[in-house]
């Protein structure tokens, strides 16, 4: 009995964090935490006003949340879900990306045409970089040397040098770019365009668009196809794109760059996050107030999990 209890404690204690799924609820002002193993909701916790972008440190010890209407980033202990401190973010932070070493947070300030750089250790603001109108999408190259910002009304992907904070290139993409994601080998940059209805595939070396991928779904109005969140598997072979009010996630072959599948999920799907082993992909469905777990190998939606009001962002704790 005693040994069983110890075993139980041990098993629950060590991997307690592993695969926990954190979902920001934009209208609910809270974070829903889901057990990735059982796909059950563990609880919901206050997150400030209008939480949107969410990410976690590589060591899994700090959970960062853009509290958009509080004009700051709130940092939580993912174990206790207690707020430990806040970071300056500039006004109206929407989406951000963490440098691969976890040292810097690059934040898009939607209302002020800026990208703010914050040191996660010293909590100091390092720079404000003027970009295009309504900055939103943030990406970082796997080597951490290049930061990408997309500006929704300027319709560009801005290449920012991570050392000098200077813009080195501007690539025009389709209307309202929302998200930027490098492949893990750094040879490709994918940028989704919500109103353009496309994904631009950019060669980061030449900063040229090599292909623009469109989407067609039988029975779905073209206007409803609005690409937003995007994730690439570690081997680069599958690219998942959330298509907003089309209520589907598109699957693109990372080699041929052709669309191979559409997965029906909840309503107005926006952001995506893999589990660390990339067995599952979680989607936030803003209008049906739930998240969908997709099995990556089979492209099947396996479960819908009700969360809070208007789920926006999602991140899964690292192993």
């Amino acid at each position, binding site marked *: 009995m005693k040994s069983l209890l110890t075993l139980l404690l041990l098993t629950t204690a060590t991997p307690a964090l592993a695969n926990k799924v954190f979902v920001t609820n934009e209208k609910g002002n809270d974070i829903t935490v889901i057990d990735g193993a059982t796909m059950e909701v563990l609880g919901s916790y206050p997150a400030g006003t209008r939480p949107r972008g969410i990410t976690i440190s590589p060591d899994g010890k700090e959970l960062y949340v853009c509290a958009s209407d509080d004009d700051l980033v709130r940092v939580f202990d993912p174990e206790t879900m207690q707020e430990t401190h806040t970071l300056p973010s500039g006004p109206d932070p929407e989406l951000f990306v963490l440098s691969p070493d976890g040292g810097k947070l690059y934040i898009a300030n939607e209302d*002020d045409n800026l990208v703010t750089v914050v040191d996660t250790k010293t909590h100091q603001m390092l720079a404000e970089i*003027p970009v*295009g109108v*309504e900055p939103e999408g943030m990406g970082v190259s796997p080597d951490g040397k290049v930061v990408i910002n997309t500006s929704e009304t300027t319709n560009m992907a801005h290449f920012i040098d991570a050392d000098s904070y*200077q813009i080195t290139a501007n690539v025009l993409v389709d*209307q309202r770019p929302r998200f930027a994601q490098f492949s893990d080998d750094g040879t490709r940059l994918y940028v989704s365009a919500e109103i353009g209805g496309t994904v631009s595939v950019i060669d980061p070396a030449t900063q040229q668009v090599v292909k623009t991928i469109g989407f067609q779904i039988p029975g779905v109005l073209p206007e409803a196809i609005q690409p937003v969140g995007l994730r690439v598997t570690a081997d680069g072979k599958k690219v998942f794109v959330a298509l907003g009010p089309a209520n589907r996630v598109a699957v693109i072959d990372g080699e041929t760059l052709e669309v191979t599948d559409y997965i029906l999920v909840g309503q107005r799907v926006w952001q995506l996050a893999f589990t660390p082993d990339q067995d599952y992909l979680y989607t936030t469905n803003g209008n049906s107030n739930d998240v969908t777990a997709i099995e990556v190998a089979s492209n099947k939606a396996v479960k819908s999990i009700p969360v809070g009001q208007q789920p926006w962002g999602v991140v899964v704790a690292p192993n």
Partner: protein
Amino acid sequence: MKSAMFLSALALIMAPVTETAAQGAPAQAPAPATAQGQTTAPAQTVQIAVLRVDRAGLPPISRLELPPPDLGFAGARLGTEDNDTTGRFMGQDFETAEVTATPDTAAAELDRLIAGGTQFIVLLADDATTLALADRAGDRALILNARARSDALRGADCRANVIHVAPSHAMLADALAQFLMWKKWPRWFLVKGSYPEDADLAAAYTRAATKFGGKIVEERVFEDTGGARRTDSGHVQVQAQLPVFTQRAPDYDILITADDAGIFAGYMPYQTWDPRPVAGSAGLVPRSFHPAMEAWGATQFQTRFEKLAARPIREEDYQAWLAVRLVGEAATRARSADPAQLREFMLSPDFEVAGFKGQKLTVRDWDHQLRQPILLTTGLLMASVSPQDAYLHQVTALDTLGIDRPETQCKF
């Protein structure tokens, strides 16, 4: 040039950007423009003018709708800010002049702007003035109509040098009609004002009824006889007169007001003889934009506008913003400031622009009307957006709103 309210867009817009850069960036970091090897004087300059032709008239019946002095101009300023922010990365600078005129001085102001080298005129004027100025400009300038709504301007009186950014009466009427048919409220009691614009608008509702299967059970004219509408306790007269005016109508589902001049529609809700809702120019109103609209990222647009103008946005501001953005988007995509090239691109099938309405907006080639969803709004909120889902079209659902290609009377 000097008499009008000319603005240096560059000075106004670049200042805050440089300021934030100086505050936030490390001291050694140079300004972004220099960092990209761009000179402070951009290689290309695009000149736009906003010409607002104000007609003397009565104030609106609600003082909440008094026109602000910067009506339309504020929207254009935001559009210029947006264009300039993008222009920094393209080596393009946008200068937008703001000119007010009366119907008598408008032609001279137009000539003066064109003589000064401006070939894009964002025009906020009534139907007759818009037509007259379009003819006067001829091939010397492209007119971006940001106010006039008559269908004739897009039909028999259409002009090749005009792009209609403002929605037409037919689009607004169709947008409301689709919603009413979805509600299964097909019997309409149409009350129109006594001005020429009201006749055009009422005709659009009649056409919409035929198009979507509604029925106008009766049409009445509300004569503008003047009267002491702003006098103290005028509401007593309103309360007594409107029920009488609307009584003995055949059975109907909803009362539709066609009152572009804003003479009576605002009085109509709750004053009808029968307990019926009101739509059209009051009640449920079809609009190009609304200050409470938060869908499709519009919240940030509203915030940016309110920061700039210190008031909620109006339709004229949205339309002027959109007109200025049309030119900016063309300049960005064409990588050019050459007016002829921009005009050609704006009128090409490849041109599209985003306008916080959830889908790309494009220009109809048969009458140069900008396709756009129409918001159906109540006082404080957006109640619905048309086209409604049930209305399909072989090209785009947006073409279920307004005059479609086969029906057009426009010949360029």
